[in-house]
């Protein structure tokens, strides 16, 4: 037979596990890819794709970005509200560059493509801010 003190300890442990798991459950994983094409020194196309991760991602969170959030848990809305800041952050993470230039009879045409390959990001939503960090 267990003592009353032992039961209290058990219930305290259970409560702490529930609270901790509820806190961690607010962290979600998202897949983000970004690409933009510049043709003849003029921006031609820009794409930012965001989706929820269907499977669990591997890796540890790297450089994080903190964005101001207004109680929303929608990453797309959050990123589109702070698109300039997020794109600057994406540039810092590193982009793949592919540049093709053709000069035919002294007439020049060029295409530059900058790409962030599909990367899994861990996003922690809080009341006033959200933490975004790539998993590597």
């Amino acid at each position: 037979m267990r003592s009353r003190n032992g039961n209290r300890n058990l219930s305290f442990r259970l409560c702490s596990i529930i609270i901790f798991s509820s806190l961690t459950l607010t962290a979600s994983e998202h897949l983000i890819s970004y690409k933009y094409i510049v043709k003849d020194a003029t921006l031609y196309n820009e794409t930012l794709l965001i989706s929820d991760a269907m499977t669990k991602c591997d890796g540890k969170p790297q450089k994080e970005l903190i964005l101001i959030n207004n109680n929303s848990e929608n990453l797309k809305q959050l990123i589109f509200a702070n698109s300039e800041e997020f794109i600057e952050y994406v540039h810092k993470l590193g982009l793949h560059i592919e540049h093709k230039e053709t000069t035919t009879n002294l007439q020049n045409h060029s295409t530059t493509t900058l790409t962030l390959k599909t990367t899994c990001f861990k996003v922690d939503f809080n009341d006033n801010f959200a933490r975004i960090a790539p998993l590597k």
Partner: protein
Amino acid sequence: MRYSILLALLLSVSSLFGADKAANTNSIEQTNAELATVRAAATQAREEAALATIEAAKAKESSRKAIDELTQVKAQKEEELASMAAEEQLLKQNRSMHISVIGQGVAPMNTASPAQAYALAKRAAIADAYRAIAEKVKGVRVDGQDTVKNMMMQKSTIRTYVQAMVKNANIVETTFKEGLCEVEMEIVISHSDFAQ
């Protein structure tokens, strides 16, 4: 009769002696003239020899100068190679290397506002700056093709290709003037970046 013969003999002998003397004086004059010509020739030869020696000295000087120039050029090349080797060593020793580029971008014709034009031109300029960094760090693949028909150039094509991954590049300065946006970008690279 005898006396007359003797006189004739004496006269002939004397005439012979006189002829010999004249011949002797002629030969001496000739030899003197020859000597003078030989002397003149000798002096000319000496002068020519002196000129030749002067020319040889000049040639020697010019060759020495050429050798000096060659040695200077060699020394410069060696210094350049040494500096290049030193630069390579800098990367090997995990010291950082600073690269700075300027990217240019143009706003599209159909923009809703000047702010949009600026934003789009800046994006294009950033892409150009990234391309410039990639060219400097990783290099460019160049391919050319010329078509000549009936001794006339028909078509000339040059294709360049760059592929790289750039991260941690920083924008230093952005200027926007008359539709052209210029972005100054810099990156600090070290050997460990390549090791990754």
